[in-house]
């Protein structure tokens, strides 16, 4: 056995690379290669059949900063990010914490209920919320029956309420998903840690803040990155719930990029690619900050 040691090691080494090769190659061909292509396109202008080098080549990149609509879409996206992500993640942690109680009955049922929204497709759930919040839809009829409102609210017709509906829908769809991750993280924490804290006289809030949160940190960082990435690339909700309206006041970055690639008869793919790289850089920066802040191990 010993004699063969070297070759076995070499074999193992080769095996390791062989295992990760198919996936790596696929990512190179299906993600990185198109990304390079997209970058080259971001330096061009014109319809998709007749792309020409832009003059100057940075044209699309400078253009976006004078594009009021794009700036508004950036603002909207960050608004969703700043309001929705914290609410959703706090709710998710709270739910996970409650569900992690050993005395709790019907745990499985609650968990299933909370996770169920994730099983609906994006197109479907947008349609469901759109119908619920329609002018004569269910929400309005319930509210007016309870005499909370006197006149039907045009939820999706006003920028403020339309943004609220988007945030509300996002929270509905994704809280359960994140909760599963926290719940999983909590189950990795030994119960004895809590017992000890309890004996030391720490109350519920203190245990949560000084024990649960630090131990959950890696999970929190992961869910944060996932949520930031998801929110910055938010697309389906904007398209299917509000079509970016009224009058583009709820449009997101990805939606605006899509509109420039295909929609409205003004296919301007080079510009769309340039904006995509802007999003790419934003996501990368935020993810890096997140990792730095959250990194406790080394």
């Amino acid at each position, binding site marked *: 056995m010993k004699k063969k040691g070297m070759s076995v090691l070499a074999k193992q080494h080769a095996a*390791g690379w062989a295992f990760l090769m198919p996936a790596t190659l696929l990512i190179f061909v299906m993600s990185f290669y198109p990304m390079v292509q997209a970058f080259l396109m971001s330096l061009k202008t014109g319809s998709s059949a007749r792309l020409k080098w832009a003059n100057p080549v940075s044209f699309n990149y400078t253009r976006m900063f004078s594009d009021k609509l794009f700036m508004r879409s950036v603002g909207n996206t960050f608004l969703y990010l700043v309001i929705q992500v914290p609410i959703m993640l706090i709710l998710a942690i709270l739910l996970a914490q409650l569900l992690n109680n050993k005395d709790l009955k019907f745990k499985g049922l609650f968990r299933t209920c909370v996770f169920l929204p994730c099983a609906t*497709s994006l197109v479907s759930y947008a349609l469901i919320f759109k119908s619920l919040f329609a002018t004569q839809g269910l929400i309005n009829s319930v509210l007016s029956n309870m005499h909370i409102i006197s006149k039907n609210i045009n939820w999706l017709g006003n920028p403020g309420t339309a943004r609220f509906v988007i945030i509300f829908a996002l929270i509905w769809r994704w809280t359960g998903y994140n909760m599963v991750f926290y719940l999983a993280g909590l189950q990795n924490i030994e119960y004895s840690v809590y017992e000890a804290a309890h004996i030391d006289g720490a109350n519920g809030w203190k245990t949560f803040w000084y024990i649960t949160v630090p131990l959950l940190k890696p999970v929190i960082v992961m869910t944060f990155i996932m949520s930031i990435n998801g929110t910055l690339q938010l697309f*389906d909700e904007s398209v299917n719930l509000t079509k970016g309206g009224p009058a583009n006041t709820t449009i997101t970055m990805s939606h605006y*990029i*899509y509109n420039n*690639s295909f929609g409205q008869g003004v296919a301007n793919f080079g510009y769309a690619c340039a904006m995509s790289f802007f999003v790419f850089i934003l996501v990368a920066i935020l993810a890096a900050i997140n990792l730095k802040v959250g990194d406790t191990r080394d």
Partner: protein
Amino acid sequence: MTDSVQTTTGKKNKSMTQRRLIPTYIFLVIFSLFSVFPLYWMITAATNKSLEVAQGKIWFGTNLAENFTKLIRDEALGTSMWNSFFYATVQMLLCLLICSLAGYGFELYHDKAKDKLFAFLLLGMMIPQVATMIPLFRMMSGGKLLNTVWAFILPQLSTPFMIMMFRQNSRNFPPDIMEAARLDGLSEIRIFFSMYMPVMKSTYAAAAVITFMNAWNAYLWPKVVMTKNQAQTMPMLIANLAGGYTIDYGELMLGVLFCSIPTMIIFFILQKQFAEGITGSVK
């Protein structure tokens, strides 16, 4: 699992604890209702007339049969269900195989070079999908793959997220097993198939749920590469129902219901393993 802690506590204590938990129950019940209500409404809507749906009727109606007749008359429901099922299943199986192999390779054979490569691959997650759509379409169109399962699955077969999930979970796979297997003369690939896979079954379950749902629900990309009626998927069918000058909401919601059932079934079946699989990935 933690029942042993409880065995010594008396009955009185138990009811005390339950009483203390009342606010928790109330909160959970409210949140569960919040989560389930829109789905309940989707189901009732599928049994109502379009106008009733638009006006927010909350109870079951009698129009289910008519909605169904209209749905199968207007749209190729069977074909779309089968296509979605076929594409999603192929994508799920291949994606699991490829990504688990990679996660296994990245974690259990890890060295500096592989760690760096992995970090680099993560960048692939961060570009909006629309940017790569035209280059990818060109590839598929040039390769004459339009309207085949390949065009549907290829861009999603290997995703940084899935690799990451398997890589994280692989930390739970004891290296001792590998050493023992090697001493028994098992080849590296045999170790993967006969040792790693069975141990990691809950990770596979979690990954299966996620990939299947993603593939089943995908709309933007499939719409671009599946250009024939015969290749239509469920989300495309729903979009067809939701377009046009006049929309029949009863019919539409029935379509939405059909589209939601398979993913829910998958989730129900694999629920327990799903939770365990996720647990492994956040250690």
